[in-house]
């Protein structure tokens, strides 16, 4: 019997999925090591020789542009195993290992082995592909978003992504040129919690009005003090206020969930849908797409999309948060922003402002989420109960048009759907 047997039931999960280091190790192997994981955006490496280090399941990887193509290599010297390229990004024609000086081309093939003659009686050496930096078995790109699957056999990418591909489309379509460029740096926020607590929370619509009252509620109070009822609010206040919207708002936002654990909250409305119009941008969109198509793009307004298990995105505000599990109770969350190519700077500046206010480790909103995760991580160590409830709106979801299910915003269905995928991944390995 596997260590994960019996941990997931239809309407609840065992607390050890969040607390047991052995379960975490299995997840790294059978989920993060076995399915599609976001590793970067191809706009990070526009030119040949451009590289950016990344990782999956704690394994250092190297994303590199070679002869126009995006390649992904295990960032490990073929010789003794040292990480070849230190963490960071840049441009290089060759990669040289710091230990014994082996030199590799951008595609990972070995170019130089010092004193190569010493390998004459072995099969090692430049003629043997064992001497190359190994490529990751499966790499797929969708609208510039690069995903990797470390396993030899990957799920068919397009059908795996189905249902949430449209969220990526909507983010990219919001560019008058239909393209995104990652820019503006990265915020790296270390969370003292299990990775799943963060992922689940992004489609948890029962928490904002409680957890974020002290920030969003206070922002509303301050805004009322300084601005008349009908006065246009500064962007920061437009961003903070809706986190304190009422239950009815989040309920009506709705959620859509799909096979493989994916989901998104919102659809035609979200906490992002009442931001002020930027006229110059609207004109650029109308010119690029025609008015009707531009309106159709803007009519899609999703809150958080979860590309399970590692990528979460916000199309209307052009940000992503990437989940990197470190340990059973440690998770790194990277927050990245995009420029909509062809759009005025005001759009990027709004995305940046959003990340400063919501995703930074020093902001007023994220730390209250983090506090909730830490209390979960602590509470789940008690013997009070072995089970974590996911009972809300049980069996009330209905099929949607895109091969998934639709239900009310505050339903726990998204969690049940995530654990259905979780159990499938974990049990497939048996």
């Amino acid at each position, binding site marked *: 019997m596997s260590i994960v047997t019996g941990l997931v039931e239809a309407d609840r999960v065992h607390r050890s999925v969040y607390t047991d280091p052995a379960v975490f190790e299995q997840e790294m192997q059978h989920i993060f090591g076995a399915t599609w994981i976001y590793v970067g955006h191809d706009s990070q490496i526009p030119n040949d020789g451009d590289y950016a280090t990344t990782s999956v399941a704690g394994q250092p990887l190297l994303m590199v542009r070679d002869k126009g193509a995006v390649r992904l290599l295990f960032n490990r010297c073929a010789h003794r195993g040292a990480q070849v390229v230190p963490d960071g990004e840049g441009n290089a024609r060759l990669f040289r290992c710091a230990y014994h000086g082996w030199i590799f081309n951008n595609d990972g093939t070995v170019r130089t082995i010092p004193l190569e003659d010493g390998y004459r009686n072995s099969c090692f050496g430049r003629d043997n592909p064992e001497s190359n930096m190994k490529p990751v078995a499966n790499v797929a790109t969708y609208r510039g978003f690069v995903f990797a699957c470390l396993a030899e056999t990957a799920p068919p990418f397009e059908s795996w992504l189905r249902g949430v591909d449209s969220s990526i489309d909507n983010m990219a379509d919001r560019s008058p040129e239909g393209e995104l460029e990652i820019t503006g740096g990265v915020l790296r926020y270390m969370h003292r919690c299990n990775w799943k607590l963060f992922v689940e929370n992004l489609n948890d619509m029962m928490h904002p009005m409680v957890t974020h009252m002290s920030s969003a509620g*206070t922002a509303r*109070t301050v805004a009322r003090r300084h601005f008349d009822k009908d006065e246009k609010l500064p962007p920061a206040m437009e961003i903070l206020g809706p986190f304190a919207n009422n239950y009815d708002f989040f309920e009506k936002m709705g959620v859509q969930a799909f096979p493989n654990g994916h989901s998104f909250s919102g659809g035609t409305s979200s906490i992002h849908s009442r931001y002020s119009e930027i006229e110059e941008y609207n004109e650029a969109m109308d010119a690029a797409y025609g008015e009707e198509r531009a309106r159709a793009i803007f009519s899609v307004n999703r809150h958080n999309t979860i590309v399970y298990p590692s990528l979460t995105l916000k199309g209307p505000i052009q940000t992503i948060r990437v989940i990197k599990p470190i340990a059973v109770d440690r998770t790194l969350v990277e927050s990245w922003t995009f420029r909509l190519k062809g759009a005025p700077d005001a759009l990027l500046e709004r995305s*940046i402002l959003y*990340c*400063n206010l919501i995703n930074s*480790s020093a902001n007023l909103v994220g730390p*209250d989420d*983090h506090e909730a995760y830490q209390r979960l991580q602590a509470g789940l160590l008690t013997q009070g109960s072995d089970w974590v409830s996911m009972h809300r709106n049980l069996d009330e979801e209905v099929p949607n048009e895109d091969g998934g299910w639709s239900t009310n915003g505050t339903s726990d269905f998204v969690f049940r759907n995530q654990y259905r995928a979780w159990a499938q991944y974990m049990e497939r390995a048996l």
Partner: protein
Amino acid sequence: MTTPSIADVEAFLVSEARLLDARDWTAWNQLFTPDGIYWIPAQPGQIDPLQHVSLIYENALLREVRIERFEDRNAFSLQGGPRGWRIVANVRIDSADMAAGTLTVSSRLMAAEYQRDRTTRFEAFVTHRLVMEQGQFRIALKRVELLDCDAARGDISLYL
């Protein structure tokens, strides 16, 4: 207007740090000019606060929100009352334009924040852009560049 002495500047920076140590956020906030900014960049040497993310980039309105939240019982991440202290050192007047009544001052900051059995230490290069108003210093910009501003990090709960 004569250029303030280094002792004047040091005394001001120490009194500013003492206000923060004492959690007298309101008095501290009054040190800023109306359009004054408090900034913790996310990248060493970061110049652009608008098209690059920051850990904090706050004008008067956002400081007002944060300061009110400090007193909010439902600010869950602040429960257990984070407390902190700051040491300001190596103060230097980098430039002064006394005709305009402005000066730029740099210093080094060591600070610590304690909450619920955990102490977080901070080391930072700090730049103040100061304006002289009726013989008093006002802060037009306080830029706190953490030594490890681009590292993966946990919460920063207080103003540094």
